[in-house]
């Protein structure tokens, strides 16, 4: 990624100088990665596309405020992640009202039953669906941290820059997120296939959804 930075900066400069195509070119260099972040954070493709568009139009307009103290991609990611978090929080508010169980089956239209997925492509898709569905149960901040660090492979420090919070906060969000995610993964949890029966997870390890929304305990650091 670092080797792409000079070209990214040049595109940003050309954009600020009025080149009508520079920003589009910049976006197209990174769009798959930005898309992955948005889709992983929001799960729903329509929501992800909306969030991405909002974010990138906003980035287009605010490019003049880019100071160059972070990599261009970090800056882009930050805007995209923030747009996704905003949407995720609103999703969380909507989801506070009880939903029928089949709400969880929606995004990819696949059965959530992993055992039915025999072929490897189907299994990939089913696992993606299961993981993204489970992720949606987490507080948006924890979800975003896990998406960046565990799924996208950003270092804790890079994620901290993107999320605009201390590295320690990223670590604790990841730790908390993993602890909450594990029981939610059910048969997709690591090593679950080796176990005849999943042992119950102690109740205090489960997310307390009422307490975790809408104001997150981590927010004192922002």
């Amino acid at each position, binding site marked *: 990624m670092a080797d792409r930075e000079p070209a990214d900066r040049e595109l940003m400069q050309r954009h600020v100088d*009025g080149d*009508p*195509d520079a*920003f*589009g070119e910049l*976006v*197209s260099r990174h*769009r*798959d990665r930005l*898309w*992955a972040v948005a889709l*992983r954070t929001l799960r729903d*493709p329509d929501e992800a*596309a909306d969030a*991405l*568009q*909002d*974010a*990138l*139009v*906003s980035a*287009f*307009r*605010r490019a*003049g*405020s880019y100071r160059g103290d972070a990599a261009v991609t970090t800056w882009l990611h930050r805007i995209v992640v*923030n*747009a996704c978090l*905003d949407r995720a*929080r609103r999703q969380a*508010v909507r989801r506070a009202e009880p939903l029928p169980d089949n709400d969880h089956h929606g995004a990819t239209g696949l059965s959530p039953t992993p055992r039915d997925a025999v072929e490897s492509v189907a299994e*990939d898709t089913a*696992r*993606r669906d299961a*993981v*993204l569905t489970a992720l949606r149960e987490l507080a948006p901040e924890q979800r975003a941290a*896990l998406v960046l660090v*565990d799924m996208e492979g950003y270092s804790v420090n890079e994620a901290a820059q993107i999320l605009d919070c201390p590295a320690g906060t990223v*670590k*604790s969000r*990841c*730790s*908390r997120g*993993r*602890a909450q*995610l*594990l*029981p939610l993964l059910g048969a*997709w*949890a*690591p*090593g*679950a296939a080796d176990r005849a029966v999943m*042992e119950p*997870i*102690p109740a*205090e*390890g489960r997310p307390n959804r009422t307490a975790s929304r*809408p*104001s997150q305990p981590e927010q004192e650091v922002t």
Partner: protein
Amino acid sequence: MPAPYGRDHATPQQLSDLLEGLLPPAEDATLTTHLGGCERCRGVRDQLNDLPAVLASVSIPPMPTAVASRLDDALAAESQRRADSSGTSPVVVPLDSARRPARNDRARRWFAGVAAAAAAVVGVSVAGNVWTQGGGGADSSGAATSDAGGNDDAGAGAEAGAAGPTDRRATVPDVALDSFAADVRPLYDERAGDFVQLRGGDEARRCSANDLRAETVTGDVGPLVLVDRAELARLVATGPARSRTITAYSCASGEKIASARLRR
């Protein structure tokens, strides 16, 4: 720490914190000892340890072409909008223009004055976002914009963009990211602890709280502003009276654009 594990087992949270190195040393040591004799906790720890790999294995296909072309279209439209709004349109510069660095030479200032006067009678198209505002006297607008200064080509279109003789356009105060604090200060009356009442009560409703993130708009909602002549934003004031934080939230995305602290 005695008996740290309820029901004789550590919670996934404790095990996860252990893996992440977040436990205080004493607790770390206790839990590590416990793990030596507890197969079940080791199992959960191993699962947590493998969890990032499971997450990393979730692959996302490339952006669908439909999304990519929609994005391209949106950015192309944005580009076009920027091209349209730069250079050729006269700008009626809003209330606080006098404090901004002069970008205009004397002739342009004069032209802009003409443009502003014209704006009081007929509509003048303004770069960026402006709204028609019904009714109202022409003189208040003229006074408010008499120090209009301009954008790159203030003179070119004093006659252009006329929207009709009865149609007066209201301007939204312009603020720049570079000088945000200085630009918003005059909009806020520190002694009264309130935003200065601006013209155009209608404007206040144009960017409703619905458009903004509910959780961000918890302060005193102030006027709309145009940030860097491109993005409409809502000002919100938060914090104690002697140290107010003024934040601009994008009307388009609800996102925070800039903020400044105003101290007494």
